[in-house]
């Protein structure tokens, strides 16, 4: 009993933050749908669920996200192996580069993809523009980095000896992969896949831009219903569908990633030299690199064109407000972006660390275990709920003392931290769970107090994955668009918001400047990621 209370006490902080900045706003918006004119009327919501269009929208969301998740995992696994276990030249640079798409604003990636796939583009002959294939490709482009990074980190820390033993006993490489390696990686793969699925299911810009409006997902439908039609009943219905589906997904993922004994003997093996038999993985990695690079190259080339000539004019113009299209120059927005990302990162890390500690302590009773796993899932929810619902919810619920936060400069970093939080938790939890509890008991029996145990047993293992998580959170914050565009004040616009405005301005410079700003954002991200890698983080974390 006392343990459960202590557990709840420790969890109180993060739960309160999530309660105020997530549960309250979302509940506020959903309540507007259920109580349309102050009177409870669930019938209207149920009626929406029965519409044939709702069924179509939900089905499209499910299958397109599922396919995109499978594609991301299939593309990501060979690269995760090659970039984390093989001594490939430039592998740190490639790893940093693969994370770049993760932060690019969808509107720019949409444009880059359409320049590539569109009728006039180099791949126009394939006729993919406006098809589900383009949507799936776009979603995979954004999310493959999540698979590479998190599964790769787990792979890096995997003890190679069981696989070597299996090989020595005569197993073929395929058999080793199937019977030894993949089962050991299952928790990491399932976690990465569930995060990717949530990102895909709530992606907004990709579906609209690449689908040519012919496809509607739950997210685009909520956007249309809320911002355009003001049909809050229908929006509430879809929000509830979203929440139910995500809860089911998280429960399934938790079940799939459970392994009998999470404690693992972790050792970081040195990457080994590339052998001839590694060609399939290396080829697959190169292919992935080409797929990710193609839209990026389109961006870079476009950013270097002014009129019909090559020029750095677009980059020089970043110090201006783009012929008056912006209130602050892009350079200033970059500073705002970095400052906001610093705040979002420390918030996400602080919350994530507490959550991770709470959910990984060994449970003594089934009830305690249930509380922990519910908490674990609870902090994943922000990934799965529409940014529009959250944004409008902020406006209608955080509007009076003591929670009059609509004007607060902290609203944007808090919203971004909520998006980054699941990434942090999923990076740290497997590492903490992998620590053999007997080490802590040994420390305690030698007279170490609680804090001392934490400092000597947990901290040495966790601080490096913590740095890796910090890099991830930083990148997620730099690229966040949905909530930021809604909440950021004009004089504190971040780079993605500014890019969105530039690309929508008819001025002659707008388009080129938007591409140049995207390249700057991408480069900044790559540099930050490289710096994190420079800290020599043999990342033991895994999703």
């Amino acid at each position, binding site marked *: 009993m006392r343990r459960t209370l202590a557990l709840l006490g420790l969890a109180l902080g993060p739960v309160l933050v999530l309660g105020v900045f997530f549960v309250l706003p979302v509940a506020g918006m959903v309540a*507007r749908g259920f109580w349309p004119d102050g009177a409870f009327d669930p019938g209207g919501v149920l009626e929406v669920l029965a519409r044939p269009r709702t069924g179509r929208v939900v089905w499209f969301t499910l299958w397109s996200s599922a396919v995109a998740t499978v594609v991301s995992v299939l593309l990501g696994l060979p690269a995760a192996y090659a970039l984390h276990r093989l001594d490939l030249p430039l592998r740190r640079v490639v790893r940093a580069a693969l994370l770049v798409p993760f932060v690019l604003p969808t*509107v720019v990636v*949409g*444009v880059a993809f*359409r*320049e590539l796939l*569109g009728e*006039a583009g180099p791949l126009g002959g394939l006729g993919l523009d*406006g098809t589900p294939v383009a949507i799936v490709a776009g979603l995979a482009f954004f999310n493959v980095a999540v698979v590479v990074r998190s599964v790769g980190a787990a792979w890096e820390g995997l003890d190679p000896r069981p696989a070597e033993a299996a090989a020595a006993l005569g197993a073929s490489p395929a058999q080793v992969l199937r019977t030894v390696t993949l089962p050991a990686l299952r928790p990491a793969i399932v976690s990465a896949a569930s995060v990717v699925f949530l990102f895909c299911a709530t992606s907004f*810009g990709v579906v*609209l*831009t690449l689908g*040519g*409006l*012919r*496809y*509607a997902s739950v997210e685009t439908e909520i956007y*249309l219903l*809320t*911002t*355009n*039609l*003001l*049909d809050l009943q229908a929006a509430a219905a879809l929000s509830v569908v979203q929440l139910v589906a995500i809860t089911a997904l998280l429960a399934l993922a938790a079940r799939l990633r459970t392994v009998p004994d999470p404690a693992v003997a972790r050792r970081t093996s040195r990457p080994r030299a590339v052998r001839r038999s590694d060609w399939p993985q290396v080829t697959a990695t190169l292919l992935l690199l080409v797929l990710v690079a193609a839209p990026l190259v389109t961006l870079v080339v*476009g950013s270097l064109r002014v009129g019909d000539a090559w020029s750095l004019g677009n980059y020089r113009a970043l110090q201006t407000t783009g012929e*008056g*299209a*912006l*209130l602050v120059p892009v350079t200033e927005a970059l*500073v705002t972006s970095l*400052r*906001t990302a*610093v*705040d979002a990162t420390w918030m996400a890390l602080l919350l994530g660390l507490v959550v991770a500690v709470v959910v990984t302590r060994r449970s003594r009773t089934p009830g305690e275990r249930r509380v922990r796993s519910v908490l674990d899932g609870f902090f994943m929810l922000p990934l799965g709920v529409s940014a529009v619902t959250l*944004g*409008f919810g902020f*406006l*209608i619920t955080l*509007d009076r003392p003591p929670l009059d936060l*609509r*004007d607060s*400069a*902290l609203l944007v*970093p808090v919203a971004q931290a909520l998006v980054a939080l699941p990434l942090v938790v999923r990076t740290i939890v497997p590492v903490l769970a992998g620590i053999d509890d007997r080490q802590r008991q040994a420390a305690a029996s030698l007279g170490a107090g609680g804090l001392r145990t934490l400092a000597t047993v947990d901290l040495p293992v966790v601080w490096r994955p913590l740095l890796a998580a910090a890099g991830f959170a930083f990148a997620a914050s730099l690229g966040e668009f949905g909530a930021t*565009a*809604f*909440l*950021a*004040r*004009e004089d504190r616009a971040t780079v993605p918001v500014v890019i*969105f*405005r530039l*690309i*929508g301005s*008819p*001025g*002659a410079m707008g*388009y080129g400047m938007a591409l140049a700003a995207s390249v700057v954002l991408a480069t900044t991200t790559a540099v930050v990621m490289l710096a994190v890698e420079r*800290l*020599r983080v043999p990342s033991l974390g895994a999703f």
Partner: protein
Amino acid sequence: MRSVRALASVLLAGVATTALTSCSLVGGGDEEETANGSPGKVVLVTHESFALPEEVLDRFEEESGFRLEVRSAGDAGSLTNRLVLTKDRPIGDVVFGIDNTFASRAVDEGVLADTDVERPAGAAAYDLEPRSDTADDLVPVDTGHVCVNVDDTWFEREGVEPPRTLADLTEPAYRDLTVVPGATTSSPGLAFLLATIAEEGEDWPAYWERLLANGAKLVDGWSDAYQVDFTQGGAKGDRPIVVSYDSSPAFTLDGEGGTTTSALLDTCVRQVEYAGLLAGAANPDGGTALLEFLLSPEVQRALPDSMYVFPVRDDVDLPTDWARFAEQPEAAYDVDPAEIAANRDDWLREWSDVTSR
């Protein structure tokens, strides 16, 4: 050796953390904002396309003594809905950017307070339908037309006569040449839908079926249509017919004293953007001063270059390129705001059904 490296890493991380903290928003300690109520501040709520030169905004602060704060997000529809949802505790003092397709919703929901701002010369022509019960809820600030644009150089090169009317767009001669932003996702798209409704009446769904059957491409927003697919856009696409604005030709100059595109003046529908004082505003005096400022010659003159729209005042000069190349139509399609208010949602739903079939 190992411990030296570990120590170096820790030190480096420490230095980095300190450096970063100093540039965090919290650590930086920007001027602490009090809530809406501080007397010297006026808050403008607007859409994402709002822009005015810094010196113009500074001038307002100098002359009126109020500090101006701009909150912009979303398009005109999202703006209107934000105000409707927060009308009990408004998020600012003044709204700018509600257009004629959403004006009725804002007025009917009681988002706005009465004002007695004086209309400058020419502005009255853009007022909403005269209303008996409310005085002057919304003040017109700028106007423009959404028109079909064509790439003249393309048609000249191909030796094809460019289209002139909406009906022409469904002719086989213009097969696969048109790109249109969506009505549910962009405001020029919605305006174009209204143009087709004004032209075709009840039969507009059939027109859209013919348009799509003739290979018209439907995309997310204006930037997708113009910048990616239009032959004169940033990415040099391959469709020479696009839905855009009457001012667009002023942005496609050929460098030899002409422009490469033109707006089809028989396909235009008028858009007017309004401003108003929010009901329950914390600073109504500051709000009124801001409304008057938006109608002042200084702001009106800056509108074309900043927001690509025409001023409502008829006594300010247009920029040179605009005077030459941004031709406004003599007559445009007009849909009664009351009719828009009554049918907009049904039209949009039906349009979605027709186009996603």
